[in-house]
C-alpha cells in the first residue's frame, strides 16, 4: 500500500500542472475583460492600463509563470530562504486576489468556503448512506415486492427531480409553513439538515440501487446459505455476513461521490444560500475572475486526486483481497 501512495503522490504535481495549463488556456480564451466592471462606471484608460499591468493581463506568458510561481509555493519557499532581505507572501500557496470581490484573496475565499462544502458534502454522504443502505437492504430482502417497487420509485424520483425543486419545496414546508429551521442562514446544525438532505437524495438513490443489486447477489451465495443453515438469526446473516460484501461496490462509489458532494453543490448552495465553494466555480467564470478560476480549479483538482487516492487506499484496507 505504501508504494502505491508514494507513486500517486509523485504523479500528483504532474496531474495538477496539466490541469493548470488546460485551465489557463480556457480561462484566457474566455471572452470579455476581467478589469471591466459589468455595469455602469468605467474608470478611464490610465486606470485600466495600470490594473492590466499590475496583474500581467497584458502578457499571458508572464501571467502563466508568475502565477505558477506564487501558487505552487515556490515563491514562498525562495523568499523565506532569502530571509530578512525579502518579504515572503502571506500564504505558502498564494492563489492571488479576486477581481470582483476586491477585499478578498482567493486563499480567503477557499478558506471560508471549502470547510462549508466539506461539511455539507460529508453530511449529505452520511445521510445518503443511511437512506440508501436501508432502502437497498429492504428492497433486496423481497425483490420485486410492493415495498421493493416503492423504494425503487422513490430512488428514481431522488435521481431525477432537480435540487432546486426539492430544495424550494423543503424550504416552503419546513421553515416557512411549519416554522422549523431557517431560510438563508448557515452555521447552526439545524441550518444544515435541509441542504444536506437535498444534496443527499441523488447519492442515496444511487447507493440504494448499488446495495440492492449487491445484496440480491450475495444473499444467493453459498456462504450465506451456510450461515442460515447453521441457524444464525436473519439480522446477523444480513448485517454481519451479507452486507460486508454487498457494501464493497458502495465503498468504491464513495470516493468520487464525496468529491462530487463537496464541490458539485452549486444549485443546493444557491437555493439554501450555503456559503460553499460551488458558487465560485460558476461565479468566477461569469465574472472572468481569472485568479479565482485558476485558484479554485487548482484546489479542486488537488482534492479530487487526493480523494481518489484515499478511496483506493481505503478499499485495500477494507478488502485485503485486492492487491
Amino acid at each position, binding site marked *: 500500500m505504501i508504494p502505491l501512495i508514494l507513486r500517486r503522490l509523485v504523479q500528483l504535481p504532474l496531474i495538477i500542472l496539466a490541469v493548470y495549463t488546460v485551465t489557463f488556456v480556457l480561462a484566457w480564451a474566455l*471572452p470579455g475583460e476581467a478589469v471591466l466592471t459589468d455595469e455602469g462606471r468605467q*474608470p*478611464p484608460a*490610465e486606470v485600466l492600463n495600470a490594473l492590466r499591468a499590475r496583474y500581467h493581463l497584458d502578457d499571458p506568458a508572464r501571467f502563466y509563470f508568475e502565477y505558477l510561481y506564487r501558487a505552487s509555493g515556490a515563491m514562498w519557499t525562495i523568499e523565506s530562504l532569502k530571509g530578512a532581505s525579502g518579504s515572503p507572501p502571506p500564504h505558502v500557496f498564494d492563489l492571488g486576489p479576486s477581481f470582483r470581490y*476586491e477585499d478578498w484573496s482567493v486563499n480567503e475565499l477557499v478558506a471560508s468556503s471549502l470547510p462549508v462544502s466539506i461539511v455539507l458534502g460529508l453530511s449529505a454522504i452520511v445521510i445518503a448512506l443511511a437512506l440508501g443502505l436501508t432502502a437497498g437492504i429492504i428492497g433486496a430482502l423481497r425483490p420485486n415486492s410492493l415495498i421493493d417497487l416503492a423504494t425503487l420509485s422513490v430512488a428514481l424520483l431522488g435521481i431525477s427531480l432537480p435540487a432546486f425543486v426539492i430544495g424550494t419545496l423543503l424550504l416552503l414546508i419546513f421553515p416557512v409553513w411549519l416554522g422549523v429551521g431557517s431560510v438563508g442562514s448557515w452555521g447552526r446544525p439545524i441550518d444544515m439538515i435541509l441542504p444536506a438532505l437535498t444534496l443527499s437524495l441523488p447519492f442515496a438513490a444511487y447507493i440504494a440501487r448499488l446495495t440492492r443489486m449487491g445484496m440480491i447477489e450475495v444473499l444467493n451465495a453459498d456462504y450465506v446459505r451456510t450461515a442460515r443453515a447453521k441457524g444464525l438469526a436473519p439480522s446477523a446473516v444480513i448485517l454481519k455476513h451479507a452486507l460486508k460484501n454487498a457494501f464493497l461496490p458502495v465503498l468504491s462509489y464513495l470516493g468520487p461521490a464525496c468529491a462530487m458532494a463537496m464541490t458539485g453543490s452549486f444549485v443546493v448552495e444557491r437555493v439554501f444560500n450555503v456559503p460553499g465553494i460551488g458558487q465560485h466555480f460558476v461565479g468566477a467564470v461569469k465574472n472572468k475572475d481569472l485568479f479565482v478560476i485558476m485558484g479554485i480549479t487548482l484546489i479542486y483538482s488537488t482534492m479530487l486526486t487526493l480523494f481518489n487516492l484515499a478511496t483506493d487506499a481505503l478499499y485495500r484496507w477494507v478488502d485485503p483481497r485486492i492487491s
Partner: protein
Amino acid sequence: MGRIIAVLAFMVAALIGVVATDRPRPRADLVWIEPSDFNTIDPQRMSHLPDLRIAYALFEGLVRWDTSSEDLHVVPALARSWDVSGDRLTYTFHLDPEATWSNGDPVTASDFAYAWQRALMPETGADYIQLFHLIRGGREFTDFRAEQLKTYADRPESERTLDAAHMLRAEADRRFRATVAVSAEEARTLVVTLIRPVPFFLDLCAFGPFLPVHPLTLERFIDLDPRTAALHQRHGWTKPPFLVNNGPYVIERWRFKRDMRLTPNPHYRDRTLARSKSLAVNFIENQNTALLAFRSGAADWHSDLEVDYIGDLLDESRAGRRDDLRALDAFGTYFWSFNCSAKLSDGRDNPFHDPRVRRAFTLAVDKNAIVDQVRRGAERPATTLIPPGSIPGFRSPPGLPFDTARARAELESAGWIDRDSDGVPENAAGTPFPTVEMLATPVGAHKDVAQVLGRMWEAALGVPSKVVIRETKVYSASLKKQDYMVARGAWFGDYLDPSTFLEIHRTGNGNNDRAFSDPKYDRLLARADNEPEPARRLTLLEEAERYAMEEALPILPIWHYEHYYLARPENAPGGLKNLSTHPRLIQYPFLLEVAR
C-alpha cells in the same frame, strides 16, 4: 465489518467536530439582506450602491445628507461648518475636534488629503477618479503619476529597484502637496480649491469615494512593486482586526458571502447616532430564497428585490394581500443605445449615424405598452434620460411622443423609403435597411423588451430586426468597442446634479458607449461648465437634455427605474423605520431602526 464501521465513524466524528467549532451569534437588532457580498469597502475604489451603503455606516465624511429632506441637502458631519469663497472655488472645512478613528487617533485634515491623493493615483483603480479631477491640479497629478510610471517601466532592469520605486513615490507625494489644491496645513482645517465653481461639490463631499481613510493602517498594507513602481494596496486592511474606521459602527465579523456583523464604534463621538445596538447583513444571492428568508422573519429589510414576478407581487400589494413591498422611484433610467459611429464594426455604413433615423426609431416605440405588458412593474415610461422631478430646480423636457406617422416621416426624410413596395425601406441606391441587430444580455427582461421593440419597429417602419444575446462580460466589451447596432443600456446618477447624467453623451467620456459626438451638445455642456450663475447653468443643462432627447437621440429611453424593498410597515411589529424614500436611494444604516 469493523473496518467499514470505522470509516463511517470517522466521517461522522469529522462532521461533529467541524459543526461544533462554528457557533452562530444571536440575531442582530437589525438584519438586512444584500443580494451579493460587497465588492469592496475601500471608499476610494467603490462604486456599487451596496458598497456605498455599508461605507456610510463605517466611515464618516465631511458632510452627510439629510435623507428625510425633499431636496436631500447636506448637513454637517465631520465638518462642523464650512466657508465658501466669493468666487465659489475655495471651500474651507472646519473639522470636529472630537472626531476620532476607531483606534482613538484623531481624524485630521491630512487623512482626507491622503484619501483623495489615493483616489487620484491611477494604480489605485478608483472608479470615480474623474470626480476628483474637479479639484484644481487633480487631473494634472493623475497624468503626472501615469507618465512617471510609464517612464519607469522603460528603464533598464537594473535601474528598477525598490529604492527607485520609493523615490518615485516620494516625488509623487511632493508633487501632490505642491500642485493639488487640497491643503491640510492645520490639523482641523481642510481647504480645497476647485477648477471651476461646482454647485454639487458639497454633495460629492458626502459621497463614498470622498470618505477619509486611516493612513497609518493603509500604509501597513502597501507594497511597492519594484518592477512597475506602482503602489499595491493589499486588501487585508478592510477587515477586522485591522480595519480602522471613523463612522458610527465597526465590523465585528465579516464572513465572505455569509454575513457581516456591525457593532457601535466605541470611539464615535455621538453615541446617539447609531440607533441599533447591532446590525447584520446577510448575503443571499438567490432572490427566491431571499424572499422566503424575509418572509420567515430572518430579516427586517431586503435592500434590492429583483424578481421576474415583481408584477405579481405588486398585484398582491394592491389587493391588500401583502404590506411589505415598497416601490421607490429610483435615480436611473433604462434605455437602448444607438451606435452613433459613421461605420459599423464590420465596415458597413451605420444607418444610426443619422439623427433622423434615431428619431424615427424612438418615435415608433410605445413605451407605455412595454412598461405595462413586458415589465409589469411600477416603472414610469421614459422620454428623457434624467428622471423628471428628481433634481430640484431642473425642468425636464417633454421628449419625443409615440407617433408612428411622424416616425415614418423622419425615416423617409433620411432617405429610407420603401421604393419597391416590399415593406422594407431602401435608400437612394436601392439598398434595403439592414437587419437591426439588438444586443442584449441573457438575464432579466432585456430579451423580452428587445423582441417587443423589434415588433414595434417592424410595424411602424417596416425594418427587420433580430436579437443578439451575449454574456455580460462580452456585452460590456462590445459596448466599449461600438461592436453593435443597438444595445440595451442603463444609467444611474451619482450626485444631485443633471451633469451626472448628461456627461455620458459628451464626446470622449469614458461612459459614452454610443460614441456619440455632437459639437452642439458638447458646446452646451462646456458653456454650463463655465457658467457661474446656478440658475443660468441649469437652463443650459435643460437645453442640453432637450437637444439630446428631442433632436439628437443617442439613446432611446424606455423607463425610469423603480427600486423594490421588502420591509414591514413602519408601525407594525418588526416594521422598519427611517428608510429614505428619495430617488437617490441613500440609506444610512445607522438611522434604521426596527419597531419592537
